[in-house]
């Protein structure tokens, strides 16, 4: 069965800005995965593909300034669909935080989770329309 195993946002130094797990891992395992992903992704340059084989899975990743957005999926899943899912997500964040930067994700970490849950749920893509997601986020923002 095909689904996202985890989503990670890390900076170049390896600091995690978001970790969203869709599979059961214990804490040590999570830490190991985070380090491994950082190791495989940061050594790659712009001439490389945006895909890396990773254990029995693959990582689809994209770099925005100093941040790496990584999605771990099954090896036979659609690479480009996830690559653009990352970009779609980043555009929503950018709109929501008004020119998003790394610090927004730090100070508003609890809101980032809400954005993720609107767009990805149970390891699947939930909603792809930026308009719909932002409308919903705006509505939630207005609630007390």
């Amino acid at each position, binding site marked *: *069965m*095909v*689904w996202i195993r985890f989503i990670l946002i890390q900076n170049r130094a390896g600091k*995690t800005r978001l*970790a969203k797990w869709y599979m059961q891992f214990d804490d040590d395992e999570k*830490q190991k995965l985070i380090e491994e992903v950082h190791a495989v992704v940061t050594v*790659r340059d712009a*001439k*490389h*593909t*945006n*895909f*890396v*084989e990773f254990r*029995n899975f693959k990582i689809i990743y994209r770099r925005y300034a100093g941040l790496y957005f990584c999605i771990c999926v099954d090896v036979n899943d*659609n*690479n*480009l*669909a996830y*690559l*653009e*899912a990352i*970009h*779609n997500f980043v555009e929503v964040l950018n*709109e*929501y*935080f*008004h020119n998003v930067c790394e*610090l*927004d994700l*730090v*100070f*508003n*970490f*609890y*809101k980032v*989770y*809400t954005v993720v*849950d609107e767009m990805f*749920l*149970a*390891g*699947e*893509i*939930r*909603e*792809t*329309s*930026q*308009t*719909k997601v*932002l409308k*919903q*986020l*705006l*509505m*939630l*923002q207005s*609630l*007390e």
Partner: protein
Amino acid sequence: MPAVSKGDGMRGLAVFISDIRNCKSKEAEIKRINKELANIRSKFKGDKALDGYSKKKYVCKLLFIFLLGHDIDFGHMEAVNLLSSNKYTEKQIGYLFISVLVNSNSELIRLINNAIKNDLASRNPTFMCLALHCIANVGSREMGEAFAADIPRILVAGDSMDSVKQSAALCLLRLYKASPDLVPMGEWTARVVHLLNDQHMGVVTAAVSLITCLCKKNPDDFKTCVSLAVSRLSRIVSSASTDLQDYTYYFVPAPWLSVKLLRLLQCYPPPEDAAVKGRLVECLETVLNKAQEPPKSKKVQHSNAKNAILFETISLIIHYDSEPNLLVRACNQLGQFLQHRETNLRYLALESMCTLASSEFSHEAVKTHIDTVINALKTERDVSVRQRAADLLYAMCDRSNAKQIVSEMLRYLETADYAIREEIVLKVAILAEKYAVDYSWYVDTILNLIRIAGDYVSEEVWYRVLQIVTNRDDVQGYAAKTVFEALQAPACHENMVKVGGYILGEFGNLIAGDPRSSPPVQFSLLHSKFHLCSVATRALLLSTYIKFINLFPETKATIQGVLRAGSQLRNADVELQQRAVEYLTLSSVASTDVLATVLEEMPPFPERESSILAKLKRKKGPGAGSALDDGRRDPSSSDINGGVEPTPSTVSTPSPSADLLGLRAAPPPAAASAPSGTGNLLVDVSSDGPAPQPSLGPTPEEAFLSELEPPAPESPMALLADPAPAADSGPEDIGPPIPEADELLNKFVCKNNGVLFENQLLQIGVKSEFRQNLGRMYLFYGNKTSVQFQNFSPSVVHPGDLQTQLAVQTKRVAAQVDGGAQVQQVLNIECLRDFLAPPFLSVRFRYGGAPQSLTLKLPVTINKFFQPTEMAAQDFFQRWKQLSLPQQEAQKIFKANHPMDPEVTKAKLLGFGSALLDNVDPNPENFVGAGIIQTKALQVGCLLRLEPNAQAQMYRLTLRTSKEPVSRHLCELLAQQF
């Protein structure tokens, strides 16, 4: 559009985060955190009831501390309290804390479930979504038990909001993945399928994921989704780039939904309904057409989204594999991508073409791109792209281009990344063998492999070249000449020394006429490498030397000198010492005639493919080698050998020819390779080798995965054994069982009748019955040829002290078996006490003047003397407890080798001989059995329990008996059966 300011709403949190960020050292950070934890703890413990806002703020701080990597051991209760707040922001923080931090077996789970229940019933879509997301994020079994029944209702309720439906669909998906048994199929399933028609594309997006998951287990229940998916897809694909408004992404209408729909369709065969099929083919063509249109935007997002759909479309076309026209178009499209400036596209095109190469319709079209792919192998900067190129070359290889591809892969090997060298070596070795037209090319290729990447040439590869050279006399002279030349390199790899030593020991005489490679030159060349080699290689070289004494008597004195040297005769390594002593004595005492017989050329190895292929598959996981199979489209190729065995016939008595498939089976267990005990050094290998005639072995296609055994010179026994297949040799003097003997035996553990063995000459059928400690077995020997077998003498041999454990009386059979005739032999068997190894059945005869011999294991295993015992649950448990000494229990956890069908399992267990006890194990999936093994001397009570785990495709088998070796032995026998 909304924009949030930093730390909006919770100033205290923002200040704390700033403080942490300003900490100069780890110590300072820990200090600050500890201060904060103390503060929060005192607030939570304080008398004053905290208001919702403060609670939210502190819980959020705790969460932040946890995410920094620190343990949090309090605050859970406060988080749970937040769940019942009426304020969204408080509830959200509560749910977030729970999702991130609370593990499933927390005692708070009851309180949490209660809060979720309230929110689900609240009719407030925001709260309902929060609750659903929490279930989806935690996904524990407890939550499944509490809510699995409610969620389908919410999903299909007419009045549920769209966003709630989206979340409910995916929430259900998560629960189904975690515990499928908790999600009952019902009338809601039909309504879920109709969500594919929903107005709201987000609902459709979520529903497709759910349906794709559910339909894998219950394809028939969801069959109607095919036509709905096709019409939905068709509407999207044919819409203009702006029709779908919100769901248009960089001028591409609903790319993700399209991809998901195309994936859903890959769960099913092509639609049967002609109209649906026609509409679908039209969609696929439209996608292919659009790929040729000029892009509507220069942005990479546009082309990525468009190509995501294109690649998924191609996957579906490959999945159907029935539309030659579409397959070729797909291939041409991918061909264009091979030269695209985007690395991603080149990578994906190579990957996708790999699967196209295995379709008979597109194989030729793929081949036309060979030059581009070779170029990719040479020039791509990203190693993963080069690897895809190597995969594709391997997949597109056939007789017409093998030489080119092999030579390119060899060239690549010189610079290939270490990580993929072994794989490339295996691939080259496989291709070279598979497509060898003349074997000198094959020999060159393998020697090149050793030269270029000796460290990565595994045993399987160099064993294989020795087997092939041994079996083909047209290449032996060439091989000898080539290894001789290769060995002259000043630094040659140890694997080259091994191959060279073996080949010269066998065929050095073929080049001895040339003074440049005269016997003394050959010897001194080999011996110059001797001292730098490992023990294993030196042992092999010693065998070469003794063979030289036979081939070249003029080298005898020199070689005896070497063997006599203290460094050999008193070598600290026992293997080397033994060889030196034995070879020296042999060369001194044996006459030249005896030497010539003992040391004669190795007989051909049984023709079997291909341990190398098996190894490649192990490396790459299932499916990796599938492109290589000649039967290209066989979907089960990766596990064909495991899956052939039909359900065991335990009760019926099929004719001996009913089960002809048994021969093609999984690798034989290690026990089948040459025995290494020292007790029977002189008898266990006849010069006929493991399986005497090449014609007796299965053809390469049949023995797809079987392992090959190391060439005999690895063990000195082969050389010292009685060479003559003597006509009147005693019954003890038999060869070792054929390599397949153990797996043939395994087939009969749970059944009593069938074909025990078959090759081109002979078929042996078995029919047997057992009662208490007695058994009678009928063996049927069928002569499959039209020529009479002479001196036909089957006999049963007891290795070791089996004679005291099992008595087998045989009746003589006629010494001649006419062509096409069958003779029958009756065996009376008595089990005297428990035994572990079965007796051997040795069959010898002459066919057309050539002596044939064959040793099998007689299908008599200890479980044949089982008497099933029925007992009630309480008796079973009582006895189970009585057998609680650790040595009385044997347990094995192992992967299922066959589909996990409970009915088949039941039949196998009954065939194994124990009674099956119902209503004993609390888990109805498990099997429990009991029985008594009857022997003349004693009875052994046995209890067994088999626990299948369908999700992990594993079993756990536990045996308890009153005798330790019996537990272990039964456990091993039975574990092989699933």
